Every structure is written in structure tokens, then in C-alpha cells.
């Protein structure tokens, strides 16, 4: 059998398979690639599907989402890409896999500093990098700079310095204080660590309960996940073992990071995708989001979940997300330089 004959047999089958997938795609659907676990936003998506009849498919990817969408090119089924950490979101833009969106609803709901000026990405929620503190330590207010104070020697727990949440915090520090001061800060913070930098944010609470350490930076929403009991009864114990302080930069506000979304360059269901984003930043969507994730809503006027409101008022630091993203690489190199994770 020659090659042409083989081709004539195989290609119609391929075309048939293609036609099948194409016909599935033509029903009202929207496909999300996400680096954050979709289970968290599942309740929102269900409401969206109920209200609009648009079915939502999700694919949870950890690393390599921009690479995958770029490789798939024009055939990519991705409509929306969701990611956490501003750096990872900017990576999508840099990979050239996004497209600019003009939407009045999105622009009205999301403050200008929380979205790309050209409409390539939009923040959907905010999380603050807060401080978990042992109950017997009487700390009411705290600055990030104080983490390096020698009086906390052997008392600080933290996850890897190369984790995006920490890298973003250090990048903000870098943007504010410059390279030399940041290096000093990281060296002193490293000297304060009670154990190797590693694990997750919740391990800070667990290790405080286990009296391995007294304090450490971690994300705000974990407080909600632990204390609400969504993580099981043991985590309620961890969550209740700590006090939570919203630290600020010296003379500034609290460091926040975002979760966000972008519309894919070759989105096959662009209209449905924009509809979904608009739903996610509507009053209803933001409220659901806040209760499902314990994050801060981006839309002014929508209140966070009660567990999170109880932490106190959030004053967001004025440094722009763009500045933070720009200093990320340098911050990551400083982490290596001082041997933070070693």
C-alpha cells in the first residue's frame, strides 16, 4: 500500500474525529485553562451555567500553561486562562497568548490598577500576605521590615523563598528599598528562620501550633480555609492556634497579590468567555468568589467573607502590580544569592 492510499484512508477518519470535536465545541461552551485548582470556583461556574446555559470545561495545569497554549496555537481550545500571582499573569502576556478585550462591565468593576491598561488581563480577586503569630505573642501591628529583626531569631517559619507568593513580596521590598537593603533583609530573615524554608503557607500555622516557630508570613485566604473547617477538623485547630496581623510596609500598606484571567488569543468561544469574566466580577460573582475562596473581592463595595473581614481593615500598598512583576526576576536572584532556601 503506498503512502497516498494510506493517507486517503486515514485522513477522512481524522477529519471525522475533528468534525466531532468541532461539533461539540459549537454548542455554547467555554473552556478554561487554569493554574489554580478549579474546585474552588466550581460553585461559581455552576451558577453561571444555570443562568446562561453555557457549559464550562476546566483544565487544571500547574506549570507550563503559557507554553501549552502557545504550542497549541490556532487549534487551542482554551478560551480563558486563569492564574494566580501577578508575575504568572504577566507571563501570559509576554508569551503572546492573550488578546486585548474591551468590555465596559469589566472596566467598571475592576479598578484600573488591577487590570492591564490594554485589556490583556484582569484581576478577579486579591489576597494579602499577612502574618500568622503565636497566640502568646502580643503583636498588634507589624511591618514586613520587622521580619528581619534579630529579636525573632529562630522564631520565623516561611515557605520557599522561590515560591511566587514570597518572590512577589520580596519584589515589592526591592522596588521600595533597593537591592542592597533587600539583600540585607533577606540575609537577616534567613538568619531568623526556625526551620528550612519550605512546605506551604498552612504549615506556618501548623508549625506555630507545634511550637516550632512563633510567626511567619502567609496568605490571608488560608485563614478562612482553615478556620471555616473546609480543610477538615485538624486544620480548624491550626487556624485557631494563631492570631492574624495585617502587616504593612514601613510607611506603606499591606502587600497584596492577585488571581486573574485573560482571554486566549485564539479563543474559539470568545463571546461566551467574556460573558463568564463579566459574571465573575459582577456583584453576585464577586460575592460567591469571596465566600468560596476567602479572598478579597476586586470590585469596590463587595465585602469579603466574615472570617476575613474579622482580620481587620485592609489598606492595600500603593506600589503598582506592574512594578512588582518587573522586580520579580531580580528578587528571585537575590533569594539564590543569600542562599535563602539552602
Amino acid at each position, binding site marked *: 500500500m503506498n503512502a497516498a492510499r494510506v493517507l486517503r484512508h486515514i485522513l477522512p477518519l481524522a*477529519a471525522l474525529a475533528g*468534525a466531532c*470535536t468541532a461539533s461539540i465545541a459549537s454548542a455554547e461552551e467555554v473552556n478554561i485553562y487554569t493554574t489554580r485548582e478549579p474546585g474552588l470556583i466550581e460553585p461559581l461556574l455552576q451558577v453561571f451555567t444555570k443562568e446562561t446555559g453555557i457549559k464550562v470545561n476546566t483544565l487544571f495545569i500547574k506549570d507550563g500553561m503559557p507554553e501549552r497554549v502557545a504550542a497549541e496555537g490556532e*487549534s487551542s481550545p482554551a478560551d480563558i486562562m486563569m492564574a494566580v500571582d501577578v508575575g504568572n499573569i504577566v*507571563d501570559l502576556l509576554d508569551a503572546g497568548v492573550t488578546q486585548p478585550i474591551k468590555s465596559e462591565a469589566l472596566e467598571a468593576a475592576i479598578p484600573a490598577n488591577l487590570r492591564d491598561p490594554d485589556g490583556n488581563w484582569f484581576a478577579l480577586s486579591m489576597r494579602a500576605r499577612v502574618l500568622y503569630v503565636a497566640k502568646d505573642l502580643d503583636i498588634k501591628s507589624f511591618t514586613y521590615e520587622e521580619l528581619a529583626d534579630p529579636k525573632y531569631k529562630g522564631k520565623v517559619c516561611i515557605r520557599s523563598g522561590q515560591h511566587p507568593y514570597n518572590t512577589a513580596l520580596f519584589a515589592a521590598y526591592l522596588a521600595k528599598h533597593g537591592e542592597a537593603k533587600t539583600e540585607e533583609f533577606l540575609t537577616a530573615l534567613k538568619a531568623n528562620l526556625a526551620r528550612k524554608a519550605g512546605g506551604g503557607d498552612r504549615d506556618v500555622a501548623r508549625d506555630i*501550633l*507545634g511550637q516550632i516557630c512563633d510567626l511567619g508570613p502567609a496568605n490571608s485566604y488560608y485563614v478562612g480555609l482553615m478556620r471555616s473547617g473546609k480543610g477538615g477538623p485538624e*486544620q480548624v485547630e491550626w487556624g485557631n492556634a494563631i492570631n492574624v496581623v495585617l502587616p504593612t510596609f514601613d510607611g506603606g500598606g499591606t502587600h497584596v497579590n492577585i488571581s486573574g484571567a485573560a482571554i486566549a488569543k485564539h479563543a474559539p468561544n470568545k463571546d461566551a468567555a467574556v460573558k463568564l469574566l463579566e459574571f465573575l466580577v459582577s456583584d453576585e460573582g464577586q460575592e460567591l468568589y469571596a465566600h468560596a475562596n476567602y479572598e478579597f473581592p476586586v470590585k469596590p463595595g463587595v465585602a469579603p467573607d466574615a472570617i476575613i473581614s474579622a482580620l481587620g481593615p485592609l489598606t492595600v500598598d500603593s506600589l503598582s502590580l506592574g512594578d512588582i512583576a518587573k522586580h520579580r526576576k531580580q528578587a528571585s536572584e537575590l533569594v539564590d544569592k543569600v542562599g535563602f532556601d*539552602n
Partner: protein
Amino acid sequence: MADTEEPRRALSLDRWRGADGGVWLLFAGVVALLVLAPVISLGLIASRGSGDLWPHLIENVIPVAFRVTFILLLGVGVLVTAIGAGTAWLVTAYDFPGRRILDWALLLPLAVPTYIVAYAYLDILHPIGPVQTTLRAILGLTSPRDLWFPEIRSMAGCIILFSLVLYPYVYLSTRALFLMQAAGLVEAAETLGARRRPVFFRIALPLARPAIVVGTSLALMEALNDVGASEFLGIRTLTVSIYSTWINRSSLPGAAQIALLMLFIIVTLIVVERWARRKQRFTGSAQRSQPLVPRQLTGVRGWATFLLGALPVLLGFVVPASYLVNEAWKRIRFNGIAPSILTETGNTILISSIATVFTVCLGLAVAYAARLNRHGIGSVLVRTASLGYALPGTVLAISILTPLANLDNLISGFSQELFGVSTGLLISGSGAALVYAYTTRFLAISVGGIEAGFEKIPRSLDHSARSLGHTPGPVLRAIHLPLLRPTIGAAALLVFVDCMKELPATLLLRPLNFETLATHLYAEASRGTYEDGAVAALAIVLFGLFPVILLARFARPAALTGGRAAIVADGHL
């Protein structure tokens, strides 16, 4: 004219198929190329980088990462060899109560993914976990600070954990070798008055070197390419550096450059090891191999031996598995079972089975080609086909993405032109990409295992069959396959278990709405609800258990060469 042409074509075709196994070699070449494709793709990605990050890497990252990686691998290497070869000798050379159970139970840790074991142990050994709480209660201490306890989030903890999970690779290969080879020489030594223990160090162990190397190198590559557990325990290996470079500094080319450096080092080490034993011959004559008669140990000595052998099983399997059962049970009472877990189990078994079939068939073909072409390019092809195992899963997946998607878009373009219908992502959208990734990654296991199996079949059998005019294909079918069946079974089950546990490539390459047990577990874990993940983790362990038990059944005769010897051994066991 046609009349004169036909016979000539037939003749040349016959030669082509004939003595030198050309078709087999060609096929093995194609397989090697399929494995090489991601490596080439990785090279292309690396070449896009300017290399401007190397001054930083050389100054701040590489020295530490190399040291950490070296210590980790050295530690894991020594421990897996000690545990793996030690237990293999124990159940081969001695007979004691519970030996027959240990014989297969020693394989059980294979069923548990490393990152699950790491999580379980952190929980168990944490100051607020059961072990330290009990210790404090016994000692009458109130504060966790009063009790010194070794920290598992350390290099030593990481080495011990990895070794407890990975030693079965060494146990499996070494036990097989001991069963078939050690007997003659060991008995000769004993006739000359040597006692059994020195015999182990001076005869059995050196003889088992190829098997130990195969097992240890598999274990070391697993340890090297792990991200989950080492990151969790705070150990920053070279692989973790690849991640920081890629994710935090947005430099995929830089990450690719580090990965290639790592690959280069691994290949060099493998070549050096093979070169170092180039003049040694390990294959005995199959017909004469007889199993070693184990020495009876009774009473206290017998039970002590059992406890010693049972320790790795206890720590590597029983403890983490009981932890999982407990967590899963708590979770089921709290939340019930997610209905999706049935579909996910189905997906996992389906995709792992398909990948296993491919991996084993291709591995067989490559190993056979190498046997037919012993002095030529055959062994190069075998080594090339094994390269995929030396790359971290995510790096392999990233490298596969581009060539596959390009192929997809090419097919789609063709179809668009010919039929006016776009086929979309035919390969990467259908799960075929996953099969490709698994096959590339785990081919090393099947090629290695089957190659070792071939080595135990005397070449005189091939020569006799071939001198009677049979071509390589029928010889393989009629002679080798029946003899190789246990080896192939063992390789298949090992590959299957590894496919089931595979996470990073699965996460990146699976199609929309396609979840496996591993991705389910990972999703739960990244939401921070590890206890939810316990059910999926338990399912992975349970479904990993069947193949491992089957493996134990199959692998016994696999240890011996073929028919007669196997029957003798089986009767003996």
C-alpha cells in the same frame, strides 16, 4: 519483465529481513528517534536563550544545587543498594519464618507515590502528630519544645524517605540475579569452607553488580527528577533549580539549558559505569543455573531475620498506607466519596494500560534489535531509547508539547485543504500525547528489564534456530518470547505502576475534562485539603497493589532462565 523483477525483489527483501536483523534495527532506530525528539526539542528551546543567566547560576545556584543533589543521590544510592541488595540476599540465602511473605511484600513500597509518603511522614512525625504526642505523654512533657526530635524536613529525612520508597527497584533486579546466578559460585565457595556472610560481600554482591546498577540507577533518576517530595521537604536539587529558573525568572530557555546539563551528566555517569565494567562478563550459562539452597534459620535468629527484612516494608509501606487508610476513612465519613473518582480510576487504568502496551512492545523491539546487532549500533539505540527517564517529568512534557502540537496543526492543515474540515488537536487533544509521554519516559524500564532478560538466554539457541534458516521474527516468536514471558510481565507491571503514579507530565499534557487519580490527588493537595486527596491516594495505592502482587508472582520464574530452571525453582519456592 515483471517475471524477472519479482524474484529479485523477494530475494533482496529476504536479505533485508535476514541475517543482520536490518528491519529490527531500523525499527529500533525509529523508536530511538521518537525518544530523541523531545531531547532535540529541548535543545532548540535551550538555544533560544542567550546564556546571560549563567554567571548568576554559576555563582549562586549551581555550586549549592550540585552539592545538595550529590549528597542526596549518594545517600539514596548507598541506602537503596544496602536495603535492596541486603533484603534480596536475606530472602535468597536464608530460610526463616515469614520468608515467603517477605519475598513479595518487599515490593509493596512501589505502589505508593513518593510525595504521598513525604506528606504522610511529615504529618505523623510533626510535633502535633501521633508519634511526638505519644512520646511526650510517656515522658510527661507538656511543651513540644522540651522534646528533641529529628526534623524530617532535612537532607537526612529526604534521603531516608526516598530510600524507603525506591529500594524495591534494586530488590527486584538483584533478587532476580541472585536466584539465577549466585548458586553455583556460592556453593563452590562454601565447599571451600567460606561462610555465608563473607560469601555475600565477596562473591554474590560483585556478581550482582549489573543488576544493582540497573536498579540503583532507576531509583536515582526517580530521586533526581522528583519535585513534589523534595520541594515539600525543603531540599533544593538541580531539578528544583530548573523550576525556579523557569517559573520565577520566566526563562524557559535557561531552564532547558540546566536540564540539558543534567542530562549530559547522567549520560556521562552511565557511560563511565559501563566502561568501567566493559571487560567483565556476568552472564552464566543458563542451563546449569540452579537456585541457591537457603540456609535454615530457626528460633530467635529466624524471627530476628524476619524483623530485619520486614523493617523496610513496615516503614516504606505499612506506615504510610495505614495513615492513608485512616485519613481516607475520616474523609469518607466527613464528606462521602466524590463520584468522579470512579471515572478517574477508569481513566487512570485505561491510559496506563495503553501506555504499558506501547512501552513494552517498543522496549521488546529495541532490546531484540540490540541482541541481533550486538557489536554495532544496537547498544547505542538501547541507551538512546532510555534517555527519557533521565529528564524530569515536566521538562519532558514541555519538550513534547511543541513537536506534537506542530504535528497536530500540520495534520489539521492537510485535512482543511483536502476535505475542508479542521481536525483540531488530534493527538494532543485525544490523550495520545499522554501515551507518548509515558512511553518515552518509561521505555528505560522496559528496555532495561527485557535486555537483562535476553542476556539470560544463551545465544546458542539463536544460532541453532538461525542456522536452520529461520529469520529473526519467527525466532523471537518461537524461542525468545516464551522464555521472556516472565521478564516481559515484570517490565509491564513496573511500567504500569509508574504510569499510574505519574503526575507532572499528566498534569500538563492531558486533554480537557480528563482527570486521573494522580491529578485528582494533586488538585486536592493544591487546594490544601490533603485529607480529601487521601481517598484518591488510597485508590492509587490499591490499584498499584494488584500489579505489584502480580509482579511478585511473575517475577519469581523471571529470575530464572526459562523452562526447566523455572520449574525447579518454582517447586523449590
